[in-house]
């Protein structure tokens, strides 16, 4: 299987080798970052639980066991039962679906929409003025209050929560992409591309975006965690996903009332909520360490956590 010698010397295999070497270096760096591996593992476990909720949960989240209202954790009910005699463990398992759906949807919508706005705002000055004035106004306002206002006005549902939180968190995605686009717009390679006659969309999509997108990727992980926390907060206040749909925030609200007799109603949903946010934060931090450190200024690092509810 001897290949002709000249083909070994052509440029193409060389770039492939370099790419492969880079990829394996990244992979090794990823595996070295133990906290990120731990975070990813936890997230994968949550994903599995959400997908396989039917198989994992011993009971339906709505099924009532009339004989055992507010019973403490036991072999039959791992996290005990609530005021209506429902199995808390099953409800915690099913509630992961709501949290993950809301988190994923909000971080996807804000990343795509906010990224689009940020790209254009960073590139076109007039557009920038309009967009940034509006977003500064949105950001100056406590996000959770805005979300409460929007979901108080619309009909309570999962979709409403997603819409409200997407409006609240889009500015954070815009800001984080706009800043590097603003800097890259003046870069020599953009000037070179323009001299070669490249059109705006080509410069934006093929040159500026790949060089500016890294902070946005990290931010979308954090937005995921903000959205999970904010959904829980809204549901806790009774303004999020309406009962009887199980949500961690809603379960904590139910547990608050009977906290003295039945503290176990709080442990399950509370720790589920904290653990997933912890995992998301570990992944976000790990991702930032893994990517190009030059794209993360001191200020940007501080800003990335602002806006969490």
């Amino acid at each position, binding site marked *: 299987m001897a290949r002709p010698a000249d083909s070994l010397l052509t440029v193409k295999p060389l770039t492939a080798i370099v790419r492969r070497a880079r990829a394996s270096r990244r992979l090794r760096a990823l595996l070295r970052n133990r906290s990120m591996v731990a975070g990813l593992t936890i997230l994968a476990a949550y994903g599995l639980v959400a997908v396989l909720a039917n198989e994992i949960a011993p009971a339906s989240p709505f099924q009532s066991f009339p004989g055992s209202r507010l019973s403490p954790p036991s072999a039959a009910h791992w996290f005990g039962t609530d005021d209506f005699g429902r199995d808390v463990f099953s409800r915690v398992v099913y509630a992961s679906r709501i949290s993950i759906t809301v988190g994923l949807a909000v971080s996807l919508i804000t990343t795509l929409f906010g990224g689009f706005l940020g790209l254009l705002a960073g590139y076109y000055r007039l557009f920038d003025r309009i967009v940034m004035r509006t977003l500064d106004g949105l950001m100056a306002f406590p*996000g*959770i209050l805005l979300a409460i206002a929007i979901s108080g006005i619309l009909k309570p549902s999962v979709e409403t929560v997603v819409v409200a939180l997407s409006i609240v968190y889009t500015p954070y995605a815009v800001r984080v992409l706009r800043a590097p686009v603003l800097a890259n717009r003046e870069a020599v390679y953009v000037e070179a591309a323009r001299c070669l006659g490249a059109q705006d969309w080509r410069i934006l999509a093929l040159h500026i975006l790949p060089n500016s997108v890294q902070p946005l990727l990290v931010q979308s992980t954090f937005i995921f965690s903000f959205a999970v926390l904010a959904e829980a907060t809204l549901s806790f206040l009774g303004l999020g996903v309406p009962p009887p749909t199980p949500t961690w925030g809603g379960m904590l609200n139910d547990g608050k009332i009977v906290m003295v007799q039945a503290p176990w109603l709080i442990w399950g949903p509370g720790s589920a909520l904290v653990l997933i*946010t912890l995992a998301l*934060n570990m992944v976000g931090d790990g991702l930032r360490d893994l990517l190009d450190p030059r794209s993360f200024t001191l200020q940007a690092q501080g800003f990335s*956590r602002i806006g969490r509810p």
Partner: protein
Amino acid sequence: MRAYIIQRLVALIPVLLVVATVVFLLVRLTPGDPAAVILGDQASAEAVRQLRARLGLDDPLPVQYGRWVINAVRGDLGSSLFFDRPVTAIILERIEPTLLLTLYGLLFGTVLGVPCGVVAAVNHGRLLDRILMAASLLGISTPSFVIGLLLAYVVAVQWNLLPAGGYVPVRQGIFGHLQSLLLPSLALGLIQFALITRMTRTAVLEVITADHVRVAHGKGLPFRLVLLRHVLRNSLIPIVTIIGLSLAVLMGGTVVIETLFDLPGVGRLAVGSILRRDYPLVQGVILYVTFAIALVNLLVDLVYSWLDPRIRY
């Protein structure tokens, strides 16, 4: 300096106007008749019609808007539909708990967060740093109402040390007042503490490698003084920025904490008036919050120039 402050305050007027307009439209264009909400389900159609006329809800939108803006400029934000009292008076009597809760939360976060961040940075990579970073990560990941629930359960219910809810105004004794706000402030401030610890650590690590720090070290200045005069002083700008920015987060947090601990503040008022569709009160509260945050931002900018004389206005 004075000219700058005046300029900033004047620049606030269009912001408030925009916020007011957006809120006005948002609130008025949504379904739900406040007259029907106030009178309840049993009200006759005639009673609802009369109330609508009395509240001026039958006028065209631009007329309602114009009337509202003119009154707002005069300092009259209208009357609450639910309480049937002036909005300004209602907000004013609820400011105290919110203001003090925010202040204590901020104080707790800053007073504890900055030293912890410095300690973590100085011990960079060692066990103490790791413990502090893990603790602050946990703090960032825990929503304030979960911390509040835990504190209420352990300290108030189990140990019976502090009240689990309710507010004691300052007038009725400072000791009881502090007792009533201790748990809420802790719940609110813990996130602040986590954020500020991390920011301080990052900022200090950035400054500590600078040349002027090495010089100070090299000329034999005690480490404590190098840290205080040369490192911390230069790290303060990003720290103050974070404190200023996180204030919006903190004010959002008061909404949840006030509801949880049953404090009669602006945050709980906001939630209640949104649920009751009390338009004038919603508008008033939102204007108040916007104004408060803008004032804090101005304050932060002024602190900048005090911290770093190179910044002039």
